[in-house]
């Protein structure tokens, strides 16, 4: 009915004119109401500022009050005795007219002087620091809240005194009660003036004014988010955009002032300003999902529509008036960030340049928290682009190109590098925390809370920012549907699917960022470090990147589950669902993992040649350990390429590490002996791995697998000192295993042994009949492994009691096969039993074959 009526009336020019006039009147009323509300809010803020000021002087104030109160208690006695001779003796009487006037006049005089003095102080501050600053900053000084509140109250008191005086002049008697009231007021003002003057000195630092600007920005933000006064009205949105734009301009001006070398403010004051800005930005990112994406709060730019995509009505009008189609406005949702982040960049650059490392670290922590917020709000792409930006800000200054290798790096540079490199990991963790609340069920629940007729509802449902455009598109058409049908026809599963599709799109982008973009960022910074010869910084990044991939691999199952959940219920045909090949992504991640191991083994070689200060982490040791582990698992998985790439360097680095640890002279013999046993650990690891490769090569039936290991050892031992080296190794092994104590890092080697045991459980086994007597003793039937390799059979025979390890294999299969290694003594632990066992196993295999023939 109403629709028909409106449709009917819309044909009438007068109705539309009246509607337009009514809109203007409505806007005028809202404008006035807004002004009223705004003024009230400002007064409350001002009062709060005054209270804050008073709170600061409460001690003096209470004291100043207490004394008159104590006097007041004794007042009745004084009043009754006021005319007694005792008082007259002290001259205390009811004040006469002239005294009263003098009292008030002095109050007025004090008030006037204070007002004059305050503004004189402000003017001197202006003259000294604000003379050459833009007008908008001087305006801030004029609007400074605390001072203004004080001045207003002082003026009130002064005027109050003037009024009292005026009343007395016209013939009224002195008002006794006014005397203590004025006295209290004057007390406030005199004590407060001291504090206010002290504060005026702080105004020499213009960054102090940024607090007021940020407060105003927050006020504007409150107005334009859902629930703010007239938040949906474009006129109000545009107004607050203008206010915020002015405030941001002021902030830029203040930051430029702070960056000015002559001002000497580029240290802590500038850093505090940046910290406050980053805190504001963090809040802003959370609030953004409550702001309509087409709000005029965002900066607007013109976009011209396609003629053939535009509605008939619009094209008809455009054609009739020959005016063409009007451009559509598109929002720039990052205008605040684009304006504020360069301020932080400026501060960061200045601080690094001037070696204010504490400030740099602090700012990087704040930036990291900001980036985490972006990830939490599912703006992962933007978060990673910001990380890339932050890297590039620091890169230019920290990675200064050096001709020679930088053997010693400032510790702060290392810390800065670590903070930078940790950003992707922290972003990933922040995203992981929030993504759990964005599955299908959560979407369904949120949709059920939306009232499509309400403009507010979609912003209050708790959807992330990237869903808003979809919700904003859906709301009017679903409202249309409700109006036409009297209720919603589109079923919840359909709405859920439309929203899930957007969620999947965002998730896909996030996954690409976590796998590909992060690699690019790390690669970029590692390349920069390589070209500028900063091995320590490169080691920090490599180590942190390795940590990132470890975290990512830990979370990949959760991410997979979420992806499956989001793609689980697709009913609408033709809906463009984004595709993501997770296997392909994982392949890329594994590739990067390999590259990282190569980098580690390269870097390890360089770092072994540089002496490490105590305050630096032992990256060389860490990388050697990591490469060793990767090598072992590559052998287990029969990855020839990886083994070939890593082993040569691993051998070299293990021997270097041994030499490095061994060279330390500790004074006493037993200490040196202990040190030697510890230093032998990398050597034993190397021999252990080198031995296992024989076993695994047989197990996988891949003779090629052991080739790189044999080749590397051959090369090492074929040099002039080869035989001596071998003897030396035998001596070290013998010595390190001579004691009764457990060898250093033997737990790790034992772990490898357990892994090998587990792998050998896959070897085919067959039952052996030992007769009834033995079967009676054994609870389970006795089995033996079936394999072509005697070595595999030997190791797999009794998996619960394996007495031999990789070192035994290496000695038997490699060293004893050499002419110069046949008679070497590797100590009591490495006896010839193992070799005999192998021979026995080989013979057993030959006998079996013969019997089969």
């Amino acid at each position, binding site marked *: 009915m109403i*629709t*028909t009526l*409106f*449709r*009917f009336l*819309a*044909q*009438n*020019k007068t109705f*539309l*004119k009246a*509607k*337009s006039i009514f809109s203007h009147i409505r806007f005028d009323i809202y404008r006035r109401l807004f002004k009223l509300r705004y003024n009230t809010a400002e007064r409350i803020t001002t009062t709060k500022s005054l209270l804050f000021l008073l709170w600061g002087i409460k001690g003096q104030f209470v004291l100043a009050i207490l004394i008159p109160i104590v006097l007041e208690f004794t007042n009745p006695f004084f009043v009754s005795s006021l005319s007694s001779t005792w008082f007259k003796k002290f001259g205390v009487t009811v004040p006469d007219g002239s005294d009263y006037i003098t009292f008030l006049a002095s109050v007025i005089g004090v008030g006037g002087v204070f007002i004059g003095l305050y503004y004189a102080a402000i003017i001197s501050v202006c003259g000294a620091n604000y003379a050459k600053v833009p007008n908008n900053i001087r305006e801030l000084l004029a609007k400074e809240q605390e001072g203004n509140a004080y001045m207003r109250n002082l003026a009130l008191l002064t005027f109050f005194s003037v009024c009292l005086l005026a009343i007395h002049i016209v013939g009224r008697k002195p008002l006794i009660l006014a005397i203590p009231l004025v006295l209290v007021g004057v007390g406030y003002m005199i004590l407060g003036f001291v504090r206010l003057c002290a504060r005026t000195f702080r105004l020499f630092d213009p960054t102090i004014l940024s607090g007021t600007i940020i407060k105003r920005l927050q006020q504007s933000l409150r107005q334009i988010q859902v629930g703010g006064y007239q938040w949906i009205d474009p006129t109000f949105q545009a107004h607050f955009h203008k206010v915020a734009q002015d405030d941001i301009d002021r902030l830029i001006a203040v930051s430029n002032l702070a960056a000015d070398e002559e001002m000497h403010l580029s240290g802590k004051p500038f850093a505090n300003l940046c910290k406050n800005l980053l805190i504001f930005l963090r809040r802003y990112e959370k609030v953004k999902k409550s702001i309509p994406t087409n709000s005029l709060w965002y900066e607007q730019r013109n976009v011209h529509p396609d003629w053939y995509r535009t*509605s*008939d*009505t*619009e094209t*008809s*009008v455009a054609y*009739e*008036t020959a*005016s063409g189609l009007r451009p559509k406005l598109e929002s720039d949702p990052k205008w605040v960030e684009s304006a504020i982040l360069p301020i932080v960049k400026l501060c960061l650059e200045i601080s690094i340049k001037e070696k204010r490392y504490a400030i740099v670290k602090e700012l990087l922590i704040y930036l990291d928290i900001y980036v985490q917020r972006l990830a939490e709000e599912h703006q992962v792409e933007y978060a990673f682009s910001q990380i890339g930006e932050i890297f590039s800000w620091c890169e230019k200054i920290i990675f200064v190109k050096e001709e020679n290798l930088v053997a010693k790096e400032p510790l702060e540079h290392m810390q800065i590098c670590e903070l930078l490199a940790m950003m992707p990991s922290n972003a990933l963790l922040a995203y992981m925390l929030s993504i759990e609340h964005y599955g299908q069920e959560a979407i369904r629940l949120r949709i059920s809370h939306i009232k499509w007729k309400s403009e507010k509802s979609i912003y209050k449902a708790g959807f992330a920012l990237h869903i808003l455009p979809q919700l904003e598109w*859906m709301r*009017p*058409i*679903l409202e*249309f*549907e409700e*109006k*036409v*049908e009297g209720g919603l*026809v*589109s*079923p919840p*599963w*359909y709405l859920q699917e*439309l929203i899930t599709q957007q969620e999947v799109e965002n998730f896909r982008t996030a996954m690409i960022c976590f796998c590909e973009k992060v690699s690019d960022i790390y690669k970029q910074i590692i390349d920069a470090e390589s070209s500028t010869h900063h091995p320590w910084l490169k080691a920090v990044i490599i180590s942190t990147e390795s940590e990132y991939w470890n975290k990512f691999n830990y979370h990949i199952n959760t991410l997979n589950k979420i992806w499956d959940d989001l793609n689980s219920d697709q*009913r*609408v*045909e033709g809906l463009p669902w984004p595709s993501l090949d997770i296997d392909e992504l994982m392949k890329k991640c594994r590739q990067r993992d390999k590259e990282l191991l190569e980098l580690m083994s390269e870097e390890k070689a360089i770092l072994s040649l540089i002496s490490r200060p105590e305050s630096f982490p032992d990256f060389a040791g860490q990388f050697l350990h990591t490469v060793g582990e990767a090598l072992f698992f590559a052998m287990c998985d029969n990855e020839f390429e990886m083994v070939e790439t890593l082993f040569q360097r691993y051998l070299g680095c293990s021997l270097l590490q041994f030499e490095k640890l061994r060279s330390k002279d500790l004074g006493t013999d037993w200490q040196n002996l202990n040190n030697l046993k510890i230093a032998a650990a990398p050597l034993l690891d190397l021999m252990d791995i080198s031995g296992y490769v024989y076993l695994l090569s047989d197990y996988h039936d891949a003779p090629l697998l052991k080739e790189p290991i044999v080749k590397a050892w051959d090369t090492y031992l074929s040099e002039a000192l080869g035989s001596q080296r071998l003897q030396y190794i035998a001596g070290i092994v013998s010595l390190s295993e001579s004691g009764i104590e457990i060898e250093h890092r033997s737990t790790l080697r034992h772990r490898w042994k357990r892994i090998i045991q587990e792998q050998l459980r896959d070897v085919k086994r067959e039952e052996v009949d030992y007769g009834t007597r033995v079967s009676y003793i054994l609870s389970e039937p006795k089995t033996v492994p079936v394999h072509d390799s005697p070595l595999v059979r030997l190791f797999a025979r009794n998996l619960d009691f394996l007495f031999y390890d990789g070192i035994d294999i290496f000695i038997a299969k490699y060293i004893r096969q050499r002419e110069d290694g046949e008679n070497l003594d590797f100590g009591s632990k490495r006896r010839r039993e193992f070799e005999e066992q192998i021979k026995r196993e080989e013979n057993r295999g030959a006998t079996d074959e013969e019997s089969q023939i």
Partner: protein
Amino acid sequence: MKNHKYESPNPLKNPRVARHFRSLSREIDTNLSAHMFFQDVHIAVMPIGGRFSQEQDFSVEIQVSSEHESQVIAILQSLTDSDLFGKSDFKQLLSDVVNKIALYLASGGRSIYEIIRDKENENAWRLYSFTDKRLFRAFGKCIQIIPKADRHLWEKSYVIIPKEDIWEIAMPEVLGGFRGYRSIFKKLSRFSQIVPSFLMDEMSQQKWPTYFNVKNYEKEKNLFVAKTTARWGWHMRSSGLRIWTEFYGMYRFITFDWAKACLREHIIKELNQLFRRLQIDAEIVVKGLPTAREILKTRQQMCEGKITFNEASKRCSMSRVE
């Protein structure tokens, strides 16, 4: 296809009523929404020319005794403009008849026919369509008052015929009946399609009033049309794709198919009732076309997400191809 001329056994009596009044004919309505709605309502209520994409399933049967067969054919032929159909083309004939009746119903919400008997055979009938304007009912009679301007054409000023000689068919009640349909049509015809006339005037003077918001006007216009035709589920020829979801668009397409199925079933039911009234032992049975009940069931399944939009469309429509 076999077409042959069906020879009428007996000459007809002259119709008594005046078919139309030129003086009362309205100018062709230029309102685009109303015109499109009218076209969409009557087109392909039955498959055009009896041809349907799922031809093998579609059949039309007439259960009639041989003595009444020629009577039924004659009545149906009189409802079309052509006499080229016979028993062998019954599918085509009935499709043409239903579409023709639907055309009359779509233009005014009801259609009225004079039942004319043969001159010689009182048990043979023809139907003669005529305008429902100036037609009144009183004392079991129908009185047609002919406007002055048309009297010279029809050579009479009024016609009185017994109610028994009139066959009237109106829009089915489930679609709002005669009054409901007229109301829709009136509402749609009331407003011009593009912009209000005053705006056209101002635009012709190269003026653009600031108080006129094109976007809002467009939105209100679409809302009005969609709400007015909600019972029929008219899809507004997909022009609303930007103002509703794909689901709701499909919902309206299917609802419109349902409305047309209701119309088809109603026309066939009325024809069968006419045969009974004329004591002709005949019944028309149409098979293989989606029934109104089936369409509603399909729509429900689509709402529950059990079938895809394409599947729903395929099941309900005669014109949309999968």
